[in-house]
Protein backbone atom coordinates (compact mmCIF):
# COMPACT_ATOMS: atom_id res chain seq x y z
CA UNK A 1 0.00 0.00 0.00
CA UNK A 2 2.78 2.41 0.82
CA UNK A 3 4.39 1.81 -2.55
CA UNK A 4 1.17 2.76 -4.30
CA UNK A 5 0.89 5.83 -2.12
CA UNK A 6 4.40 6.90 -3.00
CA UNK A 7 3.66 6.57 -6.67
CA UNK A 8 0.58 8.72 -6.35
CA UNK A 9 2.47 11.45 -4.52
CA UNK A 10 5.31 11.32 -7.03
CA UNK A 11 2.93 11.56 -9.96
CA UNK A 12 1.11 14.50 -8.40
CA UNK A 13 4.40 16.27 -7.72
CA UNK A 14 5.65 15.62 -11.25
CA UNK A 15 2.37 16.82 -12.73
CA UNK A 16 2.44 20.01 -10.67
CA UNK A 17 6.02 20.83 -11.58
CA UNK A 18 5.54 20.09 -15.27
CA UNK A 19 2.26 21.95 -15.46
CA UNK A 20 3.52 25.09 -13.78
CA UNK A 21 6.75 25.03 -15.77
CA UNK A 22 4.99 24.30 -19.02
CA UNK A 23 2.35 26.99 -18.69
CA UNK A 24 4.88 29.56 -17.49
CA UNK A 25 7.14 28.80 -20.42
CA UNK A 26 4.20 28.87 -22.80
CA UNK A 27 3.06 32.28 -21.65
CA UNK A 28 6.36 33.98 -20.98
CA UNK A 29 9.29 32.31 -22.68
CA UNK A 30 8.07 30.76 -25.93
CA UNK A 31 8.77 32.92 -28.98
CA UNK A 32 5.89 34.83 -30.49
CA UNK A 33 4.46 33.27 -33.62
CA UNK A 34 5.04 35.39 -36.72
CA UNK A 35 1.58 34.92 -38.24
CA UNK A 36 -0.80 34.55 -35.37
CA UNK A 37 0.86 36.51 -32.61
CA UNK A 38 -0.05 35.98 -29.01
CA UNK A 39 -3.15 33.92 -29.75
CA UNK A 40 -0.99 31.07 -31.01
CA UNK A 41 -0.10 30.34 -27.38
CA UNK A 42 -3.43 28.69 -26.81
CA UNK A 43 -2.01 25.91 -28.91
CA UNK A 44 0.19 24.92 -25.95
CA UNK A 45 -2.84 23.89 -23.90
CA UNK A 46 -5.30 22.88 -26.60
CA UNK A 47 -3.24 20.30 -28.48
CA UNK A 48 -1.65 18.60 -25.43
CA UNK A 49 -5.10 18.27 -23.88
CA UNK A 50 -6.46 16.79 -27.09
CA UNK A 51 -3.60 14.32 -27.36
CA UNK A 52 -4.03 13.39 -23.69
CA UNK A 53 -7.73 12.73 -24.30
CA UNK A 54 -6.79 10.32 -27.09
CA UNK A 55 -4.30 8.72 -24.69
CA UNK A 56 -7.06 8.32 -22.10
CA UNK A 57 -9.38 6.60 -24.56
CA UNK A 58 -6.54 4.43 -25.80
CA UNK A 59 -5.59 3.48 -22.24
CA UNK A 60 -9.23 2.72 -21.48
CA UNK A 61 -9.46 0.51 -24.55
CA UNK A 62 -6.26 -1.29 -23.59
CA UNK A 63 -7.64 -2.01 -20.12
CA UNK A 64 -10.89 -3.13 -21.74
CA UNK A 65 -8.99 -5.56 -23.92
CA UNK A 66 -7.20 -6.90 -20.84
CA UNK A 67 -10.56 -7.39 -19.17
CA UNK A 68 -11.98 -9.39 -22.02
CA UNK A 69 -8.73 -11.35 -22.29
CA UNK A 70 -8.16 -12.25 -18.64
CA UNK A 71 -11.64 -11.69 -17.15
CA UNK A 72 -10.08 -10.06 -14.09
CA UNK A 73 -12.61 -7.62 -12.73
CA UNK A 74 -10.11 -4.96 -11.68
CA UNK A 75 -9.62 -3.98 -15.32
CA UNK A 76 -13.23 -2.83 -15.49
CA UNK A 77 -12.61 -0.12 -12.92
CA UNK A 78 -9.38 0.87 -14.60
CA UNK A 79 -11.00 1.07 -18.02
CA UNK A 80 -13.95 3.04 -16.70
CA UNK A 81 -11.72 5.52 -14.89
CA UNK A 82 -9.62 6.06 -18.01
CA UNK A 83 -12.70 6.71 -20.15
CA UNK A 84 -14.02 9.05 -17.46
CA UNK A 85 -10.77 11.04 -17.56
CA UNK A 86 -10.92 10.99 -21.33
CA UNK A 87 -14.31 12.64 -21.33
CA UNK A 88 -13.09 15.34 -18.93
CA UNK A 89 -10.09 16.05 -21.15
CA UNK A 90 -12.43 15.86 -24.13
CA UNK A 91 -14.67 18.56 -22.72
CA UNK A 92 -11.57 20.67 -22.09
CA UNK A 93 -10.49 20.07 -25.69
CA UNK A 94 -13.83 21.25 -26.99
CA UNK A 95 -13.81 24.34 -24.77
CA UNK A 96 -10.23 25.38 -25.55
CA UNK A 97 -10.80 24.55 -29.20
CA UNK A 98 -13.89 26.70 -29.24
CA UNK A 99 -11.92 29.57 -27.71
CA UNK A 100 -9.25 29.06 -30.36
CA UNK A 101 -11.90 29.22 -33.05
CA UNK A 102 -13.21 32.44 -31.53
CA UNK A 103 -9.74 33.96 -31.54
CA UNK A 104 -8.83 32.82 -35.02
CA UNK A 105 -12.06 33.23 -36.92
CA UNK A 106 -14.46 35.03 -34.62
CA UNK A 107 -16.95 32.19 -34.27
CA UNK A 108 -17.45 29.95 -31.26
CA UNK A 109 -17.86 26.86 -33.42
CA UNK A 110 -16.80 25.86 -36.90
CA UNK A 111 -17.36 22.58 -38.65
CA UNK A 112 -14.28 23.07 -40.79
CA UNK A 113 -12.01 22.45 -37.83
CA UNK A 114 -11.53 18.69 -38.14
CA UNK A 115 -10.21 18.02 -34.67
CA UNK A 116 -13.13 19.79 -33.07
CA UNK A 117 -15.68 17.87 -35.14
CA UNK A 118 -13.93 14.60 -34.37
CA UNK A 119 -13.98 15.38 -30.67
CA UNK A 120 -17.65 16.21 -30.81
CA UNK A 121 -18.41 12.81 -32.32
CA UNK A 122 -16.20 11.07 -29.75
CA UNK A 123 -17.76 13.09 -26.96
CA UNK A 124 -21.20 11.88 -28.00
CA UNK A 125 -19.93 8.33 -28.26
CA UNK A 126 -18.37 8.28 -24.80
CA UNK A 127 -21.32 10.03 -23.19
CA UNK A 128 -23.36 7.11 -24.46
CA UNK A 129 -20.76 4.92 -22.70
CA UNK A 130 -21.87 6.41 -19.39
CA UNK A 131 -25.54 5.97 -20.26
CA UNK A 132 -24.78 2.34 -21.00
CA UNK A 133 -23.02 1.87 -17.67
CA UNK A 134 -25.68 3.59 -15.64
CA UNK A 135 -28.47 1.49 -17.07
CA UNK A 136 -26.99 -1.89 -16.19
CA UNK A 137 -26.53 -3.45 -12.77
CA UNK A 138 -22.95 -3.72 -11.57
CA UNK A 139 -21.34 -7.02 -12.36
CA UNK A 140 -19.51 -8.96 -15.04
CA UNK A 141 -22.21 -8.16 -17.62
CA UNK A 142 -21.72 -4.43 -17.26
CA UNK A 143 -17.95 -4.86 -17.31
CA UNK A 144 -18.06 -6.86 -20.54
CA UNK A 145 -20.42 -4.50 -22.33
CA UNK A 146 -18.43 -1.44 -21.28
CA UNK A 147 -15.23 -3.08 -22.45
CA UNK A 148 -16.62 -3.96 -25.88
CA UNK A 149 -17.99 -0.44 -26.24
CA UNK A 150 -14.65 1.11 -25.28
CA UNK A 151 -12.96 -1.00 -27.96
CA UNK A 152 -15.46 0.20 -30.53
CA UNK A 153 -14.54 3.72 -29.48
CA UNK A 154 -10.91 3.46 -30.46
CA UNK A 155 -11.90 1.85 -33.75
CA UNK A 156 -14.19 4.79 -34.31
CA UNK A 157 -11.43 7.38 -33.87
CA UNK A 158 -9.56 6.81 -37.14
CA UNK A 159 -12.73 5.93 -39.06
CA UNK A 160 -14.45 9.14 -37.95
CA UNK A 161 -11.41 11.18 -38.77
CA UNK A 162 -11.39 9.76 -42.26
CA UNK A 163 -15.12 10.40 -42.56
CA UNK A 164 -14.75 14.03 -41.50
CA UNK A 165 -12.02 14.58 -44.06
CA UNK A 166 -14.18 13.05 -46.76
CA UNK A 167 -17.19 15.06 -45.66
CA UNK A 168 -15.42 18.36 -46.17
CA UNK A 169 -15.70 17.97 -49.91
CA UNK A 170 -19.41 18.23 -50.05
CA UNK A 171 -20.60 19.68 -46.78
CA UNK A 172 -18.47 22.69 -46.01
CA UNK A 173 -15.78 23.89 -48.32
CA UNK A 174 -12.69 24.51 -46.27
CA UNK A 175 -13.07 28.22 -45.75
CA UNK A 176 -10.80 28.60 -42.81
CA UNK A 177 -7.38 27.37 -43.65
CA UNK A 178 -4.74 27.31 -41.04
CA UNK A 179 -1.19 26.21 -41.52
CA UNK A 180 -0.13 23.68 -38.95
CA UNK A 181 2.10 25.56 -36.60
CA UNK A 182 5.57 25.56 -38.11
CA UNK A 183 7.32 25.09 -34.84
CA UNK A 184 10.76 26.37 -34.15
CA UNK A 185 12.98 24.40 -31.79
CA UNK A 186 12.10 26.32 -28.65
CA UNK A 187 8.40 26.24 -29.50
CA UNK A 188 8.63 22.49 -29.87
CA UNK A 189 10.37 22.20 -26.52
CA UNK A 190 7.63 24.13 -24.76
CA UNK A 191 5.03 22.03 -26.55
CA UNK A 192 6.68 18.83 -25.37
CA UNK A 193 6.84 20.07 -21.80
CA UNK A 194 3.16 20.97 -21.90
CA UNK A 195 2.32 17.61 -23.44
CA UNK A 196 4.28 15.86 -20.71
CA UNK A 197 2.49 18.00 -18.15
CA UNK A 198 -0.96 17.04 -19.42
CA UNK A 199 -0.06 13.36 -19.57
CA UNK A 200 1.35 13.55 -16.05
CA UNK A 201 -1.85 15.29 -14.97
CA UNK A 202 -3.87 12.47 -16.46
CA UNK A 203 -1.69 9.85 -14.77
CA UNK A 204 -1.95 11.61 -11.42
CA UNK A 205 -5.72 12.16 -11.59
CA UNK A 206 -6.20 8.62 -12.86
CA UNK A 207 -4.23 7.12 -9.95
CA UNK A 208 -6.14 9.15 -7.37
CA UNK A 209 -9.50 8.44 -8.95
CA UNK A 210 -8.76 4.73 -9.12
CA UNK A 211 -7.67 4.62 -5.48
CA UNK A 212 -10.84 6.39 -4.50
CA UNK A 213 -13.04 3.97 -6.44
CA UNK A 214 -11.22 0.96 -5.05
CA UNK A 215 -11.66 2.31 -1.52
CA UNK A 216 -15.35 2.74 -2.25
CA UNK A 217 -15.62 -0.88 -3.34
CA UNK A 218 -13.71 -2.21 -0.34
CA UNK A 219 -15.76 -0.15 2.08
CA UNK A 220 -18.92 -1.54 0.55
CA UNK A 221 -17.58 -5.06 1.03
CA UNK A 222 -16.65 -4.28 4.64
CA UNK A 223 -20.07 -2.89 5.32
CA UNK A 224 -21.71 -5.99 3.95
CA UNK A 225 -19.40 -8.16 6.03
CA UNK A 226 -20.16 -6.28 9.21
CA UNK A 227 -23.91 -5.89 8.91
Amino acid at each position, binding site marked *: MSLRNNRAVLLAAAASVLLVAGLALALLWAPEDADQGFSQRIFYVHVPIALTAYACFGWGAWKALRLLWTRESRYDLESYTAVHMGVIFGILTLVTGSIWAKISWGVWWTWSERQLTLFLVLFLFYCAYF*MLRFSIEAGP*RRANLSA*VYALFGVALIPVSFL*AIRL*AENFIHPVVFTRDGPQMSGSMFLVFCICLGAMLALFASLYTNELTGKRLDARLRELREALE
Partner: protein
Amino acid sequence: MTYFADVAALARKDILLELRSRDTLPAMLLFVVSALVVFHFSLPSDASATASTGLLWIALLFTALLGLARAFSAEREQRVLDGLVLAPCDRSAIWLAKSLGVLAFLGVAEVVALPAYGLFFEPVGWELVAAVVLADLGLAAVGTLLAAMAAASRARELLLPLLFLPLVIPVVVGGVGATVADDPGRYLGFLALYDVIFAILSWASFEYVVAE
Protein backbone atom coordinates in the same frame (compact mmCIF):
# COMPACT_ATOMS: atom_id res chain seq x y z
CA MET B 1 -19.57 -26.43 -41.71
CA THR B 2 -21.99 -26.63 -38.83
CA TYR B 3 -21.24 -22.97 -38.15
CA PHE B 4 -22.99 -21.86 -41.29
CA ALA B 5 -25.72 -24.41 -40.77
CA ASP B 6 -26.35 -22.85 -37.35
CA VAL B 7 -26.38 -19.39 -38.86
CA ALA B 8 -28.81 -20.46 -41.55
CA ALA B 9 -31.11 -22.13 -39.03
CA LEU B 10 -31.15 -19.09 -36.74
CA ALA B 11 -31.69 -16.66 -39.60
CA ARG B 12 -34.49 -18.77 -40.99
CA LYS B 13 -36.15 -18.77 -37.58
CA ASP B 14 -36.10 -14.97 -37.39
CA ILE B 15 -37.42 -14.48 -40.89
CA LEU B 16 -40.16 -17.08 -40.46
CA LEU B 17 -41.21 -15.46 -37.17
CA GLU B 18 -41.46 -12.14 -38.92
CA LEU B 19 -43.39 -13.55 -41.85
CA ARG B 20 -45.89 -15.06 -39.45
CA SER B 21 -46.31 -12.13 -37.08
CA ARG B 22 -45.83 -9.40 -39.68
CA ASP B 23 -45.25 -6.62 -37.19
CA THR B 24 -41.77 -5.20 -37.77
CA LEU B 25 -41.51 -5.07 -41.52
CA PRO B 26 -44.79 -3.29 -42.31
CA ALA B 27 -43.94 -0.75 -39.61
CA MET B 28 -40.57 -0.10 -41.19
CA LEU B 29 -42.08 0.32 -44.64
CA LEU B 30 -44.78 2.67 -43.45
CA PHE B 31 -42.28 4.62 -41.36
CA VAL B 32 -39.84 5.24 -44.17
CA VAL B 33 -42.53 6.45 -46.57
CA SER B 34 -44.11 8.67 -43.91
CA ALA B 35 -40.71 10.10 -43.08
CA LEU B 36 -40.09 10.96 -46.73
CA VAL B 37 -43.43 12.74 -46.91
CA VAL B 38 -42.63 14.70 -43.74
CA PHE B 39 -39.30 15.67 -45.25
CA HIS B 40 -41.03 17.07 -48.29
CA PHE B 41 -42.89 19.47 -46.05
CA SER B 42 -39.84 20.32 -43.97
CA LEU B 43 -37.57 21.23 -46.85
CA PRO B 44 -37.67 24.72 -48.29
CA SER B 45 -38.73 24.85 -51.92
CA ASP B 46 -35.30 25.72 -53.25
CA ALA B 47 -33.54 22.94 -51.37
CA SER B 48 -30.60 21.36 -53.11
CA ALA B 49 -30.19 17.76 -54.14
CA THR B 50 -27.68 17.35 -51.34
CA ALA B 51 -30.26 18.35 -48.76
CA SER B 52 -32.82 15.83 -49.91
CA THR B 53 -30.14 13.14 -50.15
CA GLY B 54 -29.15 13.87 -46.60
CA LEU B 55 -32.73 13.50 -45.49
CA LEU B 56 -33.05 10.17 -47.26
CA TRP B 57 -30.09 8.87 -45.30
CA ILE B 58 -31.60 10.11 -42.05
CA ALA B 59 -34.80 8.30 -42.94
CA LEU B 60 -32.84 5.12 -43.60
CA LEU B 61 -30.98 5.42 -40.30
CA PHE B 62 -34.14 5.76 -38.29
CA THR B 63 -35.86 2.99 -40.19
CA ALA B 64 -32.88 0.80 -39.31
CA LEU B 65 -33.25 1.83 -35.67
CA LEU B 66 -36.89 0.83 -35.78
CA GLY B 67 -36.03 -2.60 -37.11
CA LEU B 68 -33.13 -3.06 -34.70
CA ALA B 69 -35.22 -2.16 -31.70
CA ARG B 70 -37.25 -5.25 -32.44
CA ALA B 71 -34.28 -7.44 -33.27
CA PHE B 72 -33.91 -8.85 -29.81
CA SER B 73 -37.31 -8.00 -28.39
CA ALA B 74 -38.84 -11.35 -29.29
CA GLU B 75 -36.05 -13.17 -27.49
CA ARG B 76 -36.32 -10.96 -24.48
CA GLU B 77 -40.06 -11.41 -24.23
CA GLN B 78 -39.67 -15.11 -24.02
CA ARG B 79 -36.24 -15.32 -22.42
CA VAL B 80 -35.17 -17.29 -25.41
CA LEU B 81 -31.84 -15.48 -25.53
CA ASP B 82 -30.56 -17.47 -22.57
CA GLY B 83 -31.51 -20.62 -24.37
CA LEU B 84 -29.82 -19.47 -27.53
CA VAL B 85 -26.65 -18.66 -25.66
CA LEU B 86 -26.62 -22.10 -24.06
CA ALA B 87 -27.16 -23.72 -27.42
CA PRO B 88 -24.16 -25.67 -28.69
CA CYS B 89 -23.21 -23.15 -31.31
CA ASP B 90 -20.59 -20.44 -31.51
CA ARG B 91 -22.10 -17.28 -30.03
CA SER B 92 -20.91 -15.23 -32.95
CA ALA B 93 -23.21 -17.35 -35.13
CA ILE B 94 -26.10 -15.70 -33.31
CA TRP B 95 -24.72 -12.34 -34.32
CA LEU B 96 -24.29 -13.34 -37.92
CA ALA B 97 -27.78 -14.78 -38.14
CA LYS B 98 -29.37 -11.72 -36.54
CA SER B 99 -27.40 -9.39 -38.79
CA LEU B 100 -28.53 -11.26 -41.86
CA GLY B 101 -32.10 -10.95 -40.67
CA VAL B 102 -31.73 -7.23 -40.06
CA LEU B 103 -30.04 -6.89 -43.44
CA ALA B 104 -32.96 -8.65 -45.10
CA PHE B 105 -35.49 -6.35 -43.45
CA LEU B 106 -33.45 -3.27 -44.32
CA GLY B 107 -33.22 -4.46 -47.89
CA VAL B 108 -36.96 -4.86 -48.19
CA ALA B 109 -37.49 -1.44 -46.63
CA GLU B 110 -35.15 0.10 -49.16
CA VAL B 111 -36.83 -1.62 -52.09
CA VAL B 112 -39.80 0.52 -51.10
CA ALA B 113 -37.92 3.60 -49.93
CA LEU B 114 -35.70 4.18 -52.94
CA PRO B 115 -38.48 4.23 -55.54
CA ALA B 116 -40.50 6.45 -53.21
CA TYR B 117 -37.53 8.78 -52.92
CA GLY B 118 -37.12 8.73 -56.69
CA LEU B 119 -40.76 9.67 -57.01
CA PHE B 120 -40.87 12.42 -54.41
CA PHE B 121 -37.46 13.98 -54.78
CA GLU B 122 -34.55 13.13 -57.03
CA PRO B 123 -34.00 10.30 -59.50
CA VAL B 124 -32.03 7.45 -58.02
CA GLY B 125 -28.67 6.68 -59.60
CA TRP B 126 -26.52 3.59 -59.36
CA GLU B 127 -24.21 5.30 -56.85
CA LEU B 128 -27.06 5.70 -54.42
CA VAL B 129 -28.04 2.06 -54.74
CA ALA B 130 -24.44 0.91 -54.29
CA ALA B 131 -24.01 3.20 -51.31
CA VAL B 132 -27.23 1.95 -49.74
CA VAL B 133 -26.16 -1.67 -50.15
CA LEU B 134 -22.76 -1.04 -48.59
CA ALA B 135 -24.23 1.07 -45.83
CA ASP B 136 -26.77 -1.64 -44.99
CA LEU B 137 -23.97 -4.10 -44.29
CA GLY B 138 -22.36 -1.74 -41.81
CA LEU B 139 -25.64 -0.71 -40.20
CA ALA B 140 -26.74 -4.32 -39.77
CA ALA B 141 -23.39 -5.41 -38.35
CA VAL B 142 -22.99 -2.62 -35.83
CA GLY B 143 -26.69 -2.30 -35.09
CA THR B 144 -27.13 -5.94 -34.19
CA LEU B 145 -24.31 -5.80 -31.66
CA LEU B 146 -25.59 -2.58 -30.13
CA ALA B 147 -29.15 -3.92 -30.02
CA ALA B 148 -27.87 -6.88 -28.00
CA MET B 149 -26.13 -4.45 -25.63
CA ALA B 150 -29.22 -2.33 -25.25
CA ALA B 151 -31.33 -5.42 -24.64
CA ALA B 152 -29.19 -6.17 -21.59
CA SER B 153 -29.84 -2.79 -20.03
CA ARG B 154 -32.80 -1.31 -18.21
CA ALA B 155 -33.18 1.55 -20.64
CA ARG B 156 -33.47 -0.54 -23.83
CA GLU B 157 -35.38 1.52 -26.41
CA LEU B 158 -33.89 4.71 -25.03
CA LEU B 159 -30.34 3.44 -25.12
CA LEU B 160 -30.16 1.99 -28.61
CA PRO B 161 -30.36 5.30 -30.53
CA LEU B 162 -27.77 6.85 -28.20
CA LEU B 163 -25.33 4.03 -28.83
CA PHE B 164 -26.15 3.78 -32.52
CA LEU B 165 -26.05 7.33 -33.83
CA PRO B 166 -22.44 8.34 -33.02
CA LEU B 167 -21.14 5.07 -34.43
CA VAL B 168 -22.94 5.41 -37.76
CA ILE B 169 -21.96 9.00 -38.53
CA PRO B 170 -19.24 7.71 -40.89
CA VAL B 171 -21.89 5.70 -42.75
CA VAL B 172 -23.93 8.84 -43.36
CA VAL B 173 -20.84 10.64 -44.63
CA GLY B 174 -20.01 7.79 -46.97
CA GLY B 175 -23.55 7.46 -48.20
CA VAL B 176 -24.24 11.12 -48.87
CA GLY B 177 -20.79 11.59 -50.34
CA ALA B 178 -21.20 8.73 -52.76
CA THR B 179 -24.47 10.22 -53.96
CA VAL B 180 -23.48 13.85 -54.44
CA ALA B 181 -19.73 13.95 -54.95
CA ASP B 182 -18.04 13.76 -58.32
CA ASP B 183 -15.97 10.76 -57.37
CA PRO B 184 -18.27 8.23 -55.70
CA GLY B 185 -15.62 5.54 -55.74
CA ARG B 186 -13.76 7.06 -52.82
CA TYR B 187 -16.86 7.15 -50.65
CA LEU B 188 -17.95 3.67 -51.64
CA GLY B 189 -14.46 2.46 -50.77
CA PHE B 190 -14.73 4.17 -47.41
CA LEU B 191 -18.09 2.51 -46.77
CA ALA B 192 -16.54 -0.85 -47.59
CA LEU B 193 -13.70 -0.13 -45.16
CA TYR B 194 -16.18 0.76 -42.43
CA ASP B 195 -18.09 -2.45 -43.11
CA VAL B 196 -14.99 -4.60 -42.88
CA ILE B 197 -13.64 -3.02 -39.70
CA PHE B 198 -16.87 -3.00 -37.77
CA ALA B 199 -18.17 -6.31 -39.01
CA ILE B 200 -15.01 -8.03 -37.83
CA LEU B 201 -15.10 -6.15 -34.53
CA SER B 202 -18.79 -6.99 -34.00
CA TRP B 203 -18.34 -10.61 -34.95
CA ALA B 204 -15.40 -11.01 -32.58
CA SER B 205 -16.91 -9.24 -29.60
CA PHE B 206 -20.48 -10.52 -29.73
CA GLU B 207 -19.84 -13.44 -27.43
CA TYR B 208 -18.73 -11.03 -24.69
CA VAL B 209 -21.93 -9.09 -25.12
CA VAL B 210 -24.28 -12.01 -24.56
CA ALA B 211 -22.16 -13.89 -22.05
CA GLU B 212 -23.27 -13.87 -18.45
